[in-house]
């Protein structure tokens, strides 16, 4: 398509009524019509031309039949205004029937997610589909937990259920008879420990003895006060029978965590009597006893190292010496052979070519053949060009050799005084 030869008309065509309405609106805003009428009334010379002065727009009633009154919808993000299309806007609007339900329980327990979509649109069937979960229903499911909680509240005792396997082979008769175990309770009060033992396990109730036992020992006079503690310790250790040890070990193995344990705490006296050792702890780096024999080094290696040190010192010394004076430097240069310089290229005689052409001639010779009419070149930094270059470009443009598309202040704010 050739736009230069094929003239295409404008795409817009507003009716005359719009322009008349716009004109009358403008005149009303500026109050011009009244002004004209007043001046015409004051001047008798224009009586004959009064009818001609009155414009069609001002004389004729306002015709707004062709004007479409539209609401404008502006996008707050893009600030674009669009006409409201009611048909398009009506799409997507869904009328949702009101959802009603009656409950005297907590409405948070109504499971809305369980209502399918097809049911939710049917108001009659909706009530039957709503499952109301009351607080009482929720409690019924956790009855077992509740009874445990009540037992704790009433008795104040903590029932501990544990399974203890009974190994009959290893239990002695004495151990079988003994069903009461003395357990040092951390609470100090009597604690009931229930052991539910199924077949072959059996339930054993172990009452906890709380009365302390007082044991009186006879100490011979030969035992001094310093040795009294160790003596009593030896006396207090009962000789445990293998059967008792086995029972204790079994119970400990069977009840590793549920049984309350008392940690052994060393007495304050023991803490005080621990001597503080100031000696260093034993380490893996013990001193090596004896001296190892070094390997013999050849004698010539030392001589070579000394020579290398001397050479290095010489270079360092020469490097840190101050520079030679200018006269010495000149003398040194004179000694060196000088290379004769080649004669400079002769100056190109360019006086015959205008200055402007000289600058842009390479551009013309290289770029111009690429273009046909018009020879258009885009120059971005025209404002920063030297004045001489601008004159040259202007010279080319004036002679019709080229057209330059220069960046300019086209869209700077235009002032009214410039025209």
């Amino acid at each position, binding site marked *: 398509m050739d736009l230069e030869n094929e003239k295409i008309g404008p795409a*817009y065509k*507003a009716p005359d009524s719009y322009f008349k309405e*716009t004109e009358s609106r403008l005149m009303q805003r*500026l109050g011009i019509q009244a002004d004209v009428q007043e001046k015409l009334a004051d001047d008798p*010379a224009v009586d004959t031309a009064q009818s001609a*002065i009155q414009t069609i727009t001002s004389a004729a009633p306002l015709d707004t039949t062709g004007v479409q009154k539209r609401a404008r919808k502006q996008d707050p993000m893009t600030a674009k205004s669009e006409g409201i299309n009611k048909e398009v806007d009506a799409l997507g609007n869904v009328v949702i029937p009101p959802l009603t339900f009656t409950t005297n329980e907590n409405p948070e327990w109504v499971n809305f997610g369980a209502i399918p979509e097809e049911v939710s649109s049917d108001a009659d069937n909706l009530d039957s589909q709503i499952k109301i979960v009351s607080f009482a229903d929720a409690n019924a499911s956790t009855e077992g937990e509740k009874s445990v909680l009540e037992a704790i509240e009433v008795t104040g005792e903590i029932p501990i259920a544990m399974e203890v396997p009974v190994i009959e082979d290893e239990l002695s008769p004495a151990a079988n008879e003994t069903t009461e175990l003395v357990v040092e309770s951390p609470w100090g009060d009597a604690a009931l420990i229930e052991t539910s033992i199924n077949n072959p396990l059996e339930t054993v109730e172990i009452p906890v003895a709380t009365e302390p036992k007082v044991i009186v020992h006879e100490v011979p006079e030969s035992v001094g006060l310093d040795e009294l503690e160790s003596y009593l310790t030896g006396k207090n250790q009962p000789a445990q029978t293998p059967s008792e040890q086995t029972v204790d070990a079994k119970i400990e193995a069977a009840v590793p965590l549920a049984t309350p344990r008392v940690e052994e705490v060393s007495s304050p006296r023991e803490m005080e009597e621990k001597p503080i050792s100031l000696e260093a702890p034993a380490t893996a780096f013990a001193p090596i006893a004896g001296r190892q024999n070094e390997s013999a080094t050849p004698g010539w290696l030392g001589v070579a190292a000394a020579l290398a040190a001397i050479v290095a010192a010489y270079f360092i010394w020469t490097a840190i010496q101050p520079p030679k004076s200018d006269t010495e430097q000149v003398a040194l240069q004179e000694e060196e052979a000088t290379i004769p310089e080649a004669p400079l290229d002769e100056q190109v005689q360019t006086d015959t070519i205008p200055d402007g052409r000289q600058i842009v001639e390479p551009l013309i010779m290289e770029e111009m053949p690429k273009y046909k009419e018009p020879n258009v070149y885009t120059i971005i930094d025209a404002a920063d060009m030297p004045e001489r270059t601008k004159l040259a470009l202007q010279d080319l443009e004036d002679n019709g050799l080229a*057209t330059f*598309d220069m960046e300019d202040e086209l869209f*700077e704010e235009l002032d009214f005084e410039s*025209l």
Partner: protein
Amino acid sequence: MSHESTQHTIPTNALRLSDCTEDELTAEMLRDGMSSALFEEVVRRYQKSVYYHCRNLLVSHDDADDAVQNAFIKIWQNAQQFRGESLLRTWVYRIATNESINLIRKRKPTIDFDEAQPEMAELISEDLYLSGDDIALKLQKALCFLPFKQKLVFTLRYFEDLSYADIALLTSTSEGALKASYHHAVKKLEIYLNVLH
């Protein structure tokens, strides 16, 4: 305002103003200032072309309507600043162009006038007062793919038939630059139209 203090000459024959040429109208304004009758004649004479010029630049009818209203109000309020260095029509076009640029900047403050605004092409077919000419509509859509500078020069030259000298005065740029911009615009539009065709 100065136009109120100036003693405007009441035209003795309104038909005389409507028969005036561009030069005579400019001379009338320079001699007697912007009278009410002269302003009405200016509005009547340039309203359509200014509207289509703003519509070409802004695409939207509502924006063009706002730009035209603001432009004529400024013409009335700043009539005393017209110094006659160009035709009255060129001055009117300049103010309308300025208003269009201001409106675009107001709608989109971060706009770059060296960049095209292709999203405006989608608004053309939905707006009011279209001529119905298919090829003209395609040309308008293709105009949206031009940088604003080239779009302005093309519309002033192609649709409004302003000379390069008038456009140079209007845009405060050289004729050479305008020719280059117009040339670039034509070439790009031909490519776009061939693609859209």
